[in-house]
């Protein structure tokens, strides 16, 4: 079977993604997705695991310094065999580096020194050089950067998250064109599934917070009744 048709059965067995921000839930559960991904070749499965290790937020360590985090990400990415997957992991970490730089500068931190690694990818020295520029002279590379800065300055984290998720979604759409039934298409599908899962979970969190507030109000009444 040709490489471009390697995962025909797997990909046609996966339900299609709708638009990211219209989704109420993921098109299939995490358990079912994991079962389907068991059809991957061992090497591809390892690549997918390494991509997740490099990019999943819940797998990141926050008890170590920036240099250790960057080193860990570089090691995970270097072990990925598939070039498409490696590029995607690198692109996502570069995006996070740019957003982290915006946050650090907003917090009043000075330009990072060149001695210590504080971010990932090709833009690290460029950002340090253009620390005082509003968008680090990267607005041509990342057209969403001015809008991200505005949302950050306005204190709108949900709007910022929506913008960043949308930027990743659009990037996946662009790089996924021409990949229909190959491993690259699987990578695009799984990454999109993660984005949908994250977005819909945010909604669930909001619902949970609302539920807690309602519960608290109701219990306050109960306490009063008991006291009476």
């Amino acid at each position: 079977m040709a490489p471009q048709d390697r995962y025909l059965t797997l990909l046609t067995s996966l339900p299609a993604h709708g638009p990211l921000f219209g989704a109420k839930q993921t098109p299939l559960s995490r358990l079912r997705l994991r079962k389907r991904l068991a059809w991957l070749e061992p090497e591809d499965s390892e690549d997918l695991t390494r991509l997740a290790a490099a990019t999943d937020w819940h797998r990141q360590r926050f008890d170590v310094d920036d240099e250790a985090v960057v080193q860990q990400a570089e090691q995970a990415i270097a072990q990925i065999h598939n070039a498409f997957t490696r590029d995607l992991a690198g692109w996502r970490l570069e995006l996070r580096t740019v957003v982290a730089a915006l946050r650090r500068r907003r917090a009043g931190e000075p330009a990072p020194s060149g001695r210590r690694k504080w971010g990932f990818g090709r833009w690290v020295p460029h950002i340090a050089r253009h620390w005082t520029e509003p968008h680090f002279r990267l607005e041509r590379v990342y057209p969403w950067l001015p809008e991200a800065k505005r949302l950050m300055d306005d204190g709108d984290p949900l709007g910022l998250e929506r913008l960043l998720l949308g930027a990743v979604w659009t990037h996946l759409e662009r790089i996924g064109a021409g990949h229909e039934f190959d491993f690259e298409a699987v990578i695009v599908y799984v990454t999109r599934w993660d984005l949908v899962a994250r977005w819909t979970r945010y909604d669930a969190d909001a619902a949970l917070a609302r539920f807690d507030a309602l519960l608290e109000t109701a219990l306050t009444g109960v306490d009063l009744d008991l006291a009476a």
Partner: protein
Amino acid sequence: MNELVIALGWTGMFGALALSAIGSIMGCAIAGQAAIGAMVDTESGQGRYLGVSVMPSTGVIYGIVIMFTLQREVTAGSAPGIFGIGLLAGIALLYASVLQGRACASAIQAMKVKPEIFGLSLAPAAIVEGFSVFVFVFALVLAGNIPA
């Protein structure tokens, strides 16, 4: 030299069938895998997926008919014509069937998401089929002009 020419004649005669069969095998396997995947994900309409997945099998039927049309006494005069028509028709049918299989796989994927585009999604595969028919018809026409 004469034996080589005659061997090429036989190669062309059976090549039409063999190459088109290889194409149909690959095309049906590609579309069939897509159909199986779609069946896993859906509760109904599985018959349609299976029906679409056998579309590339027409290539081998054209190959069989071309082979019988080319079937005659293989001589030094007829062998070059049989070789040229049989081999080139076989290669064309092979490619058509493989790519038709890919078109069918895409159609299955599309109709799984939007069942209402069942007919439209098959248009690319049908166009590829049209090119196979061109090869088939003109191979038959030219086979009639092969000298004895």
